[in-house]
Structures are given as structure tokens and as C-alpha cells.
């Protein structure tokens, strides 16, 4: 008898717990996945302000480091378990949109008469497929030449200007390199968006043809753009070697005062502004001119997963993410350059120590980030092949031509 009463008591307790758990679930919980931990504070602020208007929708921000972001997202997508909202970038846009992994936004924008006037057409085009918009533009970035004023001062080299040419950069880098002190003029990092794509545009070359079927790496002008970096390493000896830059990342070298210049993105402004060493010592100018000016432009979008269980709530949050207020937060905190053009000046204001206006000024000389359906395959391939030229194992012509051949094979399969 006592046993029976005990069993009933346990059953009642379990049911109570169950019912209360169900009761809790009345508040909708959304997951929002991002990859940049430097942007997390701004995203958190956006969520807090969103919750003032919509307390019934909880948003959990998940940060997955970039290195694992796409592999874990792809696994989630295959398992129909994507986060409700996430960041999407240009190289992966076609993959996700053509495979129906993200929600189209056109009908919802029209139905809610959502204000899109602050978005430049180039951003809207970047995240549209067959005329339908799939992503809410979030930010854009270009590349600049970050430099260390203190190292320039000790080597008595005049600071870079926005009118520098390739030659000016090379000469300065040679003068700034001091092997005894372990200081180099520039880190010739093996990076596409921050590094060689820009010199490829500046040399008049291209990465992929407009119809996305042929590789541009065998073009002699492209090879000139690549040679700019390998010469800095091997001919002018003004950069750390590929081995050294693998041991210690170029940005770590820059933040430790070991390299005087670094070609890198606008997104680093907030990082350099918070780093004790760099915040007083660095500044930035436009990239130098080769045969012409050229800068890679790119921007992220916020998207809703197609298989989300809460499309209405996710759209409500996306509307806030795309609202002028959210862009204002992104800009005023100095986090990124917002896609909403009216608030871009706020980002510049948030970084009084650096001449970050150049990032916005260079938009007129910019070229879009090269993409195709399976961008990551040939992007990784480009690193595989070019690292051999960076390491001095083969000439840059040979590496580039092998890369072009293999990239064309991959593109033919798309």
C-alpha cells in the first residue's frame, strides 16, 4: 500500500515537472549563429533592444569560430538542423540559396512594406538569386593598408599616403626591415580577400570569368598581381617567410610590432582599437596603386533557415536586424561598416584614432568578391597551390598555372 502511494507521488512530481517545462516553452527561442567574437557585444546589444519590443521572443547568439563555421553549418543543414538565423557570406550564398536552405524574403518585404531604401543595389544584388532576395544585408568591408607609426618613426621612413604606388610600398618595406631586430616591412600573408585578390585587381587581372566557368589565374596580369607578394618574400626579403607566418599569424606579428605594414580588412578596426599595443600606434591608408586601383569589396547578410520551426518570429527578428536602429548600433559601437548607407559615417566617428574613412572612400575602386557555386573548393585549392610559391618551392608562374588548370577542372563539375 505504501509502495503504491509512493509510485503515485513520483508520477505526480514527474507530471508537474513536465507541465511546467511545456509552460516555459511558450516563449519562442531562436538561435542566431555568427562567427566573429569581436562582433558579439554589438549583436548582444541588438538582441537586448529587440527584446524591449518583443520580450516573448528569446534569441540565443551562438559563436562558432570561422574555421569551423561552414563545416558545422553544412552538417547542420544536411541534418535539417540549421540555426534559425545565421550569417551568410558571398562565397557560400549560391550554395545555400540554390539548394533551398534559406527563406526567400521578397514576399514578406512586400507584405510588410519593409523599408529597404538605405541598402545599396550592389548589396541587394549580391544576395539575390534569379531576382529573389534571400539575405538581409548586414555590413560591408573593404581592405586597407594598416601600418605601425612607431616602426616608421624609428626607421625614419615617411608614413604611407593614399597616393602610394606599388613601388612606394616596396621601397618602404625594404627600409623598414631590420633582420637583427626581427622586424619586417610588411607581412605578405597568404590570404585572398585581404591579400592577393587586391593586387590581382591592381595588376589588371581577374580571378574567375564573369560566366564563372574559367579561372583567371593563368592570366599574365593575374600572375603579376601574385608576384607582388612572392617578390616581397623572396626577392626583396621584406616579409617574414611562409613558414614564419604559419608559426605566428601575420596579424599577431602586426600586433606585436614585428611587421610595419599589413594589408587587411576594415573589420579589424575594432580589434586594433581595443588592443593595448595597436590602439595608439597604428593607422591606415588606401591600398597602393598598381596599374590601376583595386580593392575587394564584400559584405555579410543575415538569413533565415528554410527549415526553421518559427518562420514568423524569425522574420520579426530579421526585420529588427535589418532596421536602421540595428545598423546604428553596429556603426556606433565601431563594430563594422553597416550596409545601411545613412549610418556609415557613425562607424567612422567611432574610430577617431584611425583614418578609417578610406575604407568607405575605396568603394569606388572596388571589385566584388569572386564566387561560384562551390567557391570553397577552389578557394582552398588556391591556398594549396599558392602556398608552394609562397614557400619558395616553385615559381609563382608554375603555381598559378597549375592552380588555373585544377580550378578549371573543378568549375567544369559545377
Amino acid at each position, binding site marked *: 500500500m505504501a509502495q503504491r502511494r509512493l509510485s503515485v507521488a513520483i508520477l505526480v512530481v514527474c507530471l508537474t515537472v513536465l507541465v511546467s517545462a511545456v509552460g516555459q516553452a511558450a516563449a519562442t527561442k531562436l538561435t542566431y549563429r555568427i562567427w566573429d567574437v569581436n562582433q558579439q557585444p554589438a549583436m548582444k546589444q541588438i538582441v537586448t533592444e529587440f527584446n524591449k519590443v518583443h520580450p516573448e521572443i528569446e534569441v540565443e547568439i551562438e559563436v562558432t569560430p570561422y574555421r569551423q563555421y561552414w563545416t558545422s553549418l553544412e552538417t547542420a*543543414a544536411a541534418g535539417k538542423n540549421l540555426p534559425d538565423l545565421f550569417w551568410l557570406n558571398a562565397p557560400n550564398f549560391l550554395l545555400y540559396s540554390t539548394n533551398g536552405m534559406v527563406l526567400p524574403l521578397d514576399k514578406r518585404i512586400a507584405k510588410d512594406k519593409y523599408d529597404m531604401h538605405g541598402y545599396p543595389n550592389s548589396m541587394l544584388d549580391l544576395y539575390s538569386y534569379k531576382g529573389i532576395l534571400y539575405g538581409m544585408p548586414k555590413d560591408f568591408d573593404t581592405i586597407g593598408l594598416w601600418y605601425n607609426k612607431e616602426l616608421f618613426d624609428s626607421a625614419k621612413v615617411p608614413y604611407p599616403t593614399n597616393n602610394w604606388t606599388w613601388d612606394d610600398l616596396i621601397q618602404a618595406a625594404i627600409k623598414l626591415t631590420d633582420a637583427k631586430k626581427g622586424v619586417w616591412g610588411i607581412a605578405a600573408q597568404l590570404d585572398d580577400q585581404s591579400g592577393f585578390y587586391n593586387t590581382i585587381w591592381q595588376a589588371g587581372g581577374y580571378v574567375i570569368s564573369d560566366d564563372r566557368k574559367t579561372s583567371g589565374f593563368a592570366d599574365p596580369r593575374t600572375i603579376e598581381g601574385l608576384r607582388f607578394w612572392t617578390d616581397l618574400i623572396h626577392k626583396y626579403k621584406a616579409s617574414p617567410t*611562409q*613558414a614564419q607566418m*604559419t*608559426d605566428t599569424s601575420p596579424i599577431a606579428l602586426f600586433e606585436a610590432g614585428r611587421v610595419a605594414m599589413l594589408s587587411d580588412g576594415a573589420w579589424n578596426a575594432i580589434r586594433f582599437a581595443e588592443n593595448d599595443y595597436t590602439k595608439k600606434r597604428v593607422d591606415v591608408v588606401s591600398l597602393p596603386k598598381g596599374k590601376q586601383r583595386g580593392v575587394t569589396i564584400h559584405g555579410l547578410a543575415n538569413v533565415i533557415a528554410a527549415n526553421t520551426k518559427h518562420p514568423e518570429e524569425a522574420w520579426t527578428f530579421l526585420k529588427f536586424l535589418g532596421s536602421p536602429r540595428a545598423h546604428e548600433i553596429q556603426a556606433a559601437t565601431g563594430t563594422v561598416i553597416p550596409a545601411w548607407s545613412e549610418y556609415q559615417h557613425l562607424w567612422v566617428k567611432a574610430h577617431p584614432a584611425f583614418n578609417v574613412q578610406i575604407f568607405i572612400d575605396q568603394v569606388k575602386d572596388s571589385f566584388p568578391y569572386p564566387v561560384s557555386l562551390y567557391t570553397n573548393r577552389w578557394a582552398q585549392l588556391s591556398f594549396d597551390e599558392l602556398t608552394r610559391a609562397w614557400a619558395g618551392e616553385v615559381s609563382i608562374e608554375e603555381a598559378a598555372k597549375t592552380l588555373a588548370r585544377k580550378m578549371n577542372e573543378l568549375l567544369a563539375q559545377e
Partner: protein
Amino acid sequence: MRSASDSVPGFRKVLRSRKYQGWLWGYILILPTVLGLGLFYLWPLVQSFYLAFTRWGAFGDYRWCGLQNFERLVSDPKIVDALRNSLVFTGLTVPLSISLATLIAVLLNAKIRGVSFYRVLYFLPVVTMPAAVGIVWRWLFNADYGAINYVLQKVFAIRGPSWLTDPKIALYSLVAVAVWGAIGNNMIIILSGLQNIPTVYYEAADIDGAGVLTKFFRITLPMLSPTLFFVSVTAIIGALQMFELVYMMIGINSPAIRATQTVVYLFYREAFINMNKGYASAIILVLFVIILGLTFIQLRLQRRWVHYD
């Protein structure tokens, strides 16, 4: 008149018997582990074999493609690199870690002061997270700013090499870290094997006037051979599957990547970076066959050198 329960003699009796209850409970208790094993080990194993014959598109879309993956495998230079790296890595790590572990186990079998402390010390690397191990060793090995080259420069005035980025020596640096990590694990098992050797043999040897080395090679090693056999089989299987050291310590764009990427690392690249899960499954199937073959050979050789009493 026979009733239904009579025609199956004592069926209910069997159900209530002690013996049946015994093995019924046995099955119930192992059910969770067996389910887990089946779900997370055996089923993926079977799936991998099947997937080796498929070709993948994006997001889990795959179709049968017969032997295409294996044709591609045969002519892929990366596979040859990876196989060579895995075999060299195994060939160095296993003998080194087992012999060092045996030596240390023998030393720690003695009744010296603080022996428990030393045992803990040697076992610590085994319970340290691989990610932490990778990060710390990567910093130690850093050619320009790492502790190892710093000591070499300051104390011995030698300019240390690029431990992790020089293709000629990167693999050996990984072997060093792997041996460091594996000693503890092997040591514990060998230690228990040592403690199972009856002291009678040593006493008899002492009476006959045997020296330390003779005792080691004539008594310890033969009596230890079953344990050593177990350790060598598991160590080889483990070493051939090494992935985390390459992933954590050698960057994918490192000049040393071709000289260090192992078969499982190649599997990771193909499956998750190039999104070719079919080709990756074919690679892993080849590794499975190789490990199976090596284990079979070891089992056969067992008769030659393992003493069971």
C-alpha cells in the same frame, strides 16, 4: 488430458527460474552499452562502407557511383603522401612509446618514495584535452618565439629549427608530442602486467645469481609479452588513426602540410572542406583494410613471441 501449459513442459517454470532471471538481467544491463555501440560505432561503420561507393553533391545529396572513388584514389598523389606519413608516424611512435613506457613502468614498480606521485605525473598527459595539448606544444615549438628555441638560443647558443613548419622535421616533432602523450597510457597497462609476474621467479633468479639485466630480459620481458602484445596492437591502431595533432599543430596552409597530413586528416579535408563525403569514405575504407591486415599479421606473429602460461 494435457493442458496447453503442459505441452511446453515447464515453460513458466523456466521463466521464473534463477538461471533465466540471471541472464535476462545480464542482457538488460548490457543493453545501453550495446545500443550505444551499435548506434554510434557499428551502424556508421556499415554506412561508411556503403558511402565509399557514392558521389556527393551539396547538403547530403548523394548517389551510387560504383568504383569511381577508388579509381580516383589510385591516382591521387595526396593519398600516397598521407599513407607514407601515417606509416612513418606509426613506425616511430609505437616502438618509442612502448619501450619508454616499459622502462618507466619497471622503474615505477619499485618501492621508492613518492612512487604514486610519479605515476600520476606520467599519466597526466593522457587526461589532458588533446586541444590543450596541441595549443601548448604549438607554442613551445614556435620557431621564433617558442620556449624550446628560446632555451636552445640562450643556453646552448644554437639557432633552433622550424619545428612545425619545416617539411623535413615537422613529422618528427609530432612524433615527439605523440610519444609524450602515449607513455602514460601504455605505462599504466604495462605496470599492471608487471605486478602480475609472480615474485617466485625473481627469487629463484636471485638464488642463481642473475644480474639486473638478465632478470629483465629473461624473466620480465617474456612474462610481460601478453601485455606488450595488447599494448602494441592498440598502439598501432591508434597511431594509424592520428588526426588531432596535425589538425591542431600544423595549419592547412603550412609549408609542412604535405609532409605531415595523415590518412584521417585527408579524410577530414575531403569530407568537410571539399564536401566529398563519398571519396572520404573510400579513403577511410582503405585505412580500415590496412589496419585490419596489420592486426591480423600481429595476431599470427603472436605465436612466435608471446608467452602464455
